[in-house]
């Protein structure tokens, strides 16, 4: 857009007309009056901070980085980026032990998986939760995601790696921490579906956590190192890189260049959600799917915040709608309140649950069998706060697909 030529900031903050539209869609300021809201915390505050960093306001840490303000802004101002950058530049440099533990998802995941049964058991115990609450300020009401005991990477090497070479087409897979440490089944589902479509699935060379939790917990330099390593691995792969997490995808495509100044322009387009990749394969006639005749489900789709920001829900929804037995209910797009590690923190628990309340009600009222979403932290939040289970659209597809027939169609 030509107007941007006249901007001096990369966040477009001069384009803010003070119109207040962003404040209508901020999930935090709607439930927590102490948060100054996106307009005040973003472009309004930035005018002052540019003069003197003493204007930095501690309450900016209440922003959960959902970016819904940016989706709503009619003037293209990157409000969320302005707030995140202010936190990085002016926020406290000393990071709490708790935040370090929550942020280092891959280190903590590796350690926890070594003794997964013990960790799962103790994290579920009330006295342990109380100690974590008191000592670390991780809210005792929060349910922790379980550790799987066997990493996805390990499963892949033992059970899948050898067979991938036989397929005529090849993709890479950025599985992310959640699939690796907590829920390898999603990765297994992706391998199953892609193999049936005639695609071999490869892992990246030394994938690191995307870094989203490091960024939101003030560990910017460490996040930038992860970003560099991931971009190197993706460049080396030379293949389309599929993902199953909307937040990992958004972080690698947009937060790396915007917030970490890691240039990804040459490979950004290669990083894509698996639902998008599959939908486009089918629509372009490059692959075909046979579905099980007996698959029936009424599913509610929850648009995760970063999915809304990327504008890609149309792909996940269209892919799910391809399944003949699926009746899809599109929930009103709204934040579930978890915001990654945000809702785990004691000081945010109330806000987190209040933000999610309208979504939980929609889900309970929807009469669906389960919820589908592209975000793992939405899954934790919804499973903890409603009576429904949550599946990634790729797992839904893996259940609905007739593997034998699909393999034949794509031979």
């Amino acid at each position, binding site marked *: *857009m*030509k*107007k941007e030529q*006249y901007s001096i900031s990369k966040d477009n903050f001069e384009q803010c*007309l003070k*119109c*207040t*539209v962003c*404040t*209508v*869609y901020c999930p935090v*300021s*709607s*439930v927590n*009056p*102490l*948060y*100054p*809201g996106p*307009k*005040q915390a973003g472009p309004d505050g930035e005018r002052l901070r540019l003069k003197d960093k003493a204007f930095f306001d501690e309450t900016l840490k209440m922003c959960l980085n959902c970016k819904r303000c*940016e*989706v*709503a*802004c*009619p*003037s*293209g101002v990157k409000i969320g980026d302005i707030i995140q950058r202010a936190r990085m530049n002016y926020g406290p440099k000393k990071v709490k032990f708790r935040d370090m533990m929550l942020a280092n998802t891959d280190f903590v995941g590796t350690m926890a998986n070594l003794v997964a049964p013990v960790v799962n058991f103790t994290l579920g115990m009330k006295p342990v939760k109380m100690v974590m609450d008191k000592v670390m300020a991780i809210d005792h009401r929060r349910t922790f995601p379980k550790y799987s005991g066997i990493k996805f990477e390990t499963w892949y090497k033992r059970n899948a790696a050898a067979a991938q070479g036989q397929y005529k087409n090849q993709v890479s897979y950025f599985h992310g921490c959640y699939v690796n440490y907590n829920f390898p089944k999603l990765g297994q589902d992706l391998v199953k579906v892609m193999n049936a479509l005639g695609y071999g699935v490869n892992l990246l060379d030394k994938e690191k956590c995307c870094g989203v939790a490091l960024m939101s917990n003030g560990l910017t330099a460490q996040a930038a190192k992860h970003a560099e390593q991931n971009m190197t691995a993706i460049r080396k792969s030379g293949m389309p890189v599929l993902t199953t997490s909307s937040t990992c995808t958004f972080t690698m495509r947009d937060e790396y260049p915007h917030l970490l100044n890691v240039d990804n322009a040459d490979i950004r*387009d290669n990083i894509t959600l698996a639902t998008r990749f599959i939908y*486009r394969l089918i*629509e372009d006639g490059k692959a075909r799917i046979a579905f099980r005749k007996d698959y029936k489900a009424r599913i509610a789709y929850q648009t995760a915040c970063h999915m*809304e*920001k*990327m*504008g*890609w829900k*149309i792909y996940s929804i269209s892919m799910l709608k391809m399944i003949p037995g699926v009746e899809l209910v*599109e929930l009103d*797009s709204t934040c579930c309140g978890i915001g990654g590690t945000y809702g785990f923190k004691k000081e945010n628990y109330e806000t987190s649950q*209040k933000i999610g309340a309208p979504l939980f009600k929609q889900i309970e009222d929807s009469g669906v069998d389960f919820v589908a979403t592209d975000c793992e932290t939405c899954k934790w939040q919804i499973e903890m706060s409603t009576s429904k289970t949550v599946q990634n659209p790729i797992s839904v597809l893996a259940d609905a697909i007739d593997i034998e027939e699909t393999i034949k169609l794509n031979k």
Partner: protein
Amino acid sequence: MKFDTVIIGGGLSGLACGISLAEKGKKCAVVSSGQGALHFFSGSFDLLGYIDGSEVESPIQALSSLNKEHPYSLIGVDEVERISNEIPAFLNKTGVKITGGNAKNHYRLTPIGNKRPTWLTIDEYITADDSFNGKKLLLLNVAGYLDMPVKFIATGLEQQGLSCDVDEISIPELEKRRENASEMRSVNISKTIETIGINRIADAINSKGNGYDVVLLPAVFGWNGNEQFETLKGLVKPMVKTVATLPPAVPGVRIQTLMRKYFQSLGGTILTGDIVVGGKIENGKLQWINTRNLEDEKLIAATYVLATGNFFSRGIAGAPNEIYEPIFGLDVNTKACRDEWYDERFFNPQPYMRFGVSVDNNFRTLKNGKTIENLYAIGSVLGGADQIKEASMGGVSLITGVHVAELISKR
């Protein structure tokens, strides 16, 4: 991705057009770059309020005196009358309830207490006509809410010969909102009322409203539906009416939400927070368009509608030496010499306010003087009228939106 029609712009005109087409079974997508001008809605839709600065009493009778470039003149007086007759029922279907008619304007009360002629006003608003003569009015603000200038409004009502007492209500949860004055906004209050429950609000109103015929409240009820205000009406003894506030406008956000949901319930697709970055015009037709978020995905449709708004919404853009349509570079009825854009007297009609996209008699756009056979334009992006000065913006948006939908479905 293939659609029958892709509409660029998700404001009033885009949604009106999309709804009309979707009702006829057309597969439509709306690409919406941020939220629209309805968030600054006055509470009334204007058809035609002024000609050359003089008030219009009957908009329908005044249509014939408009210049031939005016969007109404392009449609034709009889057609404008027919469509405007149908608009109340059209809005009612989406859940938007209004009063008024096209034979005679009534007055709306502006957020600063002035009166302006208008066509349709939402049911809940007080209108500045004689129906409240002799009534005892109480203007009841929410304590600490600054976006309703109480004294201005009371003075405005007094100038109409009405007497009006002023008071305020206070509820602990709303008091808590005052801790952050900048976020004591209409929509946040509306969301807080959802959690407080409308019964307690009604109790607070009843405790002040004894002995009054009408209680006037700021329009802070029901940002996403009609229920909140409808329930309130049943619980409060005097008649309850609301007064327009400064932005964000709760009734406008509600209208946007209701129209979007209705469009989606008819099978319409909305791409939120996305912008059209280009397309291919060949053989006098627009062949496809691209969006920022969907990247190389081509959106292919038989017809396209430009509903991108005026300067504010970036449908028309200005640079130091040109005024242009930023997506396709369509013909704009601008003046070559910058001096002719302005009138030096600020409050005089400004020529640039009449600038917009040029269209042929069938609302098809032009590029370099040649008609683009399947790209239409509607709403505020159209040139030929100063829609703010003449008070015609809502009418032009709704009526051109519906008219073009009819032209498209006749193809």
